[in-house]
């Protein structure tokens, strides 16, 4: 067992760090303040291949692995939580399910454009009455056998990259089935393109954190998509959604990790500069112990995140969920670490930490969502304990 990155990953990290510092950091405060989607940064990431890091080269991607993508997410999240989540939703929630479940035709049609950044991706599962509980889904898809089109009706809420994305993975009810004598909803997954008649965007959400991220309601009113846009088998939508979220959780765990690391870096620098009672506050043992606790916890989160990424790398794009528990552990621990660490970093900044000019203020607001989206910390505990108690 070796806990060091190899040359490729070390070099990739230095690239992502340079890019994050030069291109992402300067905009972080502004896009938060203005609740503005960082389109220009997405374009720069696209130009440098960051939107297709895990995509095989035959589909126009960079042909790198999950760990490389995680390093990119980590360095970007260190300076901007908003930019990181846009990349995560695109890569983990849109590219991944198409690569894992798509037909060759679907892959050829969508992946090269997603990998090059010509298309941005998104994923729609959550509804006003259905988040984790997929059986609460109300959005319906009915096959019109005359025209060979699926007709979608319903709405999705809290969708990351909403209105900005060009391709959406949408989960919808396609009928009812009997399972162990009980009637249950049959759930399927679809690929829906922006601009399809009947597909519009509703309210833009105003959020506590990741305020530059475009979070929208998606509305489907007799939205007709080709029959061939069914993703995976009919009736397998719940599995596809859960499998997709397993990968997504690695992305969010990394976002959380980056936020904790970024806040900690700033706080170490601040405590060395800030003077009280004639000496820098880093000379007080209270500060030193807090920094040590935060560092140990953040490093532990990093190990869980890298372990989850490597578990995913071991299988690549697959329809099998072999890394659910690793992803859940990484997300649970990294998200709670991010919240605790960023909050403590604000505390060590004193009054300045509460002022918007200081990045830790934004990082604390950004961190909270990592405990909620793509499965709350409570759901992560269900996933982990479920695997312990099964069988």
């Amino acid at each position: 067992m070796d806990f060091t990155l190899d040359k490729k990953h070390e070099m990739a990290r230095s690239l992502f760090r340079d890019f994050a510092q030069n291109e992402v950091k300067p905009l972080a405060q502004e896009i938060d303040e203005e609740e503005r989607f960082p389109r220009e940064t997405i374009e720069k990431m696209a130009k440098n291949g960051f939107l297709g890091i895990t995509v095989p080269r035959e589909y126009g991607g960079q042909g790198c692995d999950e760990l490389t993508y995680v390093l990119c997410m980590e360095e970007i999240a260190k300076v901007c939580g908003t930019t990181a989540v846009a990349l995560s939703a695109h890569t983990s929630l849109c590219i991944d399910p198409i690569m894992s479940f798509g037909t060759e035709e679907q892959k050829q049609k969508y992946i090269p454009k997603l990998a090059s950044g010509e298309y941005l991706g998104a994923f729609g599962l959550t509804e006003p009455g259905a988040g984790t509980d997929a059986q609460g889904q109300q959005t319906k898809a009915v096959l019109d056998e005359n025209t060979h089109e699926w007709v979608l009706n319903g709405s999705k809420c809290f969708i990351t990259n909403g209105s900005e994305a060009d391709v959406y993975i949408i989960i919808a009810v396609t009928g009812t089935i009997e399972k162990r004598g009980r009637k249950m909803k049959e759930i399927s997954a679809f690929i829906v393109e922006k601009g399809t008649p009947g597909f519009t965007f509703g309210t833009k959400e105003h959020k506590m954190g990741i305020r530059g991220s475009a979070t929208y309601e998606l509305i489907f009113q007799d939205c007709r998509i080709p029959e061939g846009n069914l993703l995976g088998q009919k009736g397998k939508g719940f599995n596809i959604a859960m499998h997709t979220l397993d990968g997504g959780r690695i992305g969010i765990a990394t976002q959380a990790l980056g936020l904790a690391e970024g806040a900690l870096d700033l706080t170490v620098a601040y405590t060395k500069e800030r003077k009280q009672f004639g000496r820098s506050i880093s000379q007080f043992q209270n500060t030193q112990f807090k920094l040590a606790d935060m560092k140990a916890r953040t490093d532990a989160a990093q190990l869980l995140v890298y372990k989850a990424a490597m578990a995913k790398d071991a299988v690549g794009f697959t329809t099998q969920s072999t890394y659910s528990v690793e992803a859940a552990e990484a997300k649970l621990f990294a998200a709670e670490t991010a919240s605790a660490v960023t909050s403590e970093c604000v505390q060590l900044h004193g009054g300045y930490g509460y002022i918007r000019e200081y990045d830790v203020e934004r990082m604390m607001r950004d961190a909270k969502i990592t405990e909620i989206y793509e499965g709350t910390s409570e759901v992560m505990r269900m996933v982990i304990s479920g695997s312990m108690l099964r069988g």
Partner: protein
Amino acid sequence: MRIIVCIKQVPDTAGGVKFKPDGTLDRAAMLAIMNPDDKAGLEAALRIKDAYPGTTVDVITMGLPKADAVLREAMAMGADKSYLVTDRPLGGADTWATSSTIAAAIREMGDYDIIFTGRQAIDGDTAQVGPQIAEHLGIPVISYAQDVKVDPEKKTVTVQRQFDDRYHVLEAKMPVLITALSELNEPRYMTPMGIWDAIDAPVTDSNDADYAEKYKEILASDGKGVIIWHRKDIPTLKDEDMGLKGSPTKIAKASDKVRKGAGTIYKDLDPDQGAATICQALVEKHYI
């Protein structure tokens, strides 16, 4: 077209300059980076490659084995083959010995159309190596390039050369050597794919038993590759022109820049009054 870019690994002076007790640079204590002017030369070459498909961009550096890092970086940005010239007898070279060695190595690399070097390296600031290489090779040199255009049909380059408060527009026939300013362009980032290819690139060392065969394979492939050369691989280099012994420059002492005071400005004086005032000030300070 074939373009050769000369690059150098230098200590990153952005993090402060560190010296050993004997007054020489403590390179180990400073981060090593690709010299910024050289990176601009590489970017200029890669832009020509983007504009004229079929162009190849090869890089060469002389240095310690760890200079491999800048070759990998250049390949991750888009360069094709890279050459590391490294050998104990080549060490301690000044600009004369360096340019003699690199020019001799370039002769072994085969035909080329353009050579780019940086204007100067941030560790020595001499700006001599580029023009000297051109001199050794007997090709024209255009220094301080702030804009470069090529005409592959006519085999010419048109270059804006920075000059005090203006620039000169110069045209030269290929093969030509151009020294680039870091203001020439904004160098691109590496790409993740480029990094993977650069690290996976095959390496051959002329001391290896299978060198001849492997070198051929690397040259024949479309991909990247690292070639490591030693003294014996550059036969046109004379012993008296290489390494410390072949270096006419002797460094007495190196030091960090000494911060100067703001000085005194005397205004509204005619030349005679000015001269008298300055003389008086120098006398007061016992300088004259």
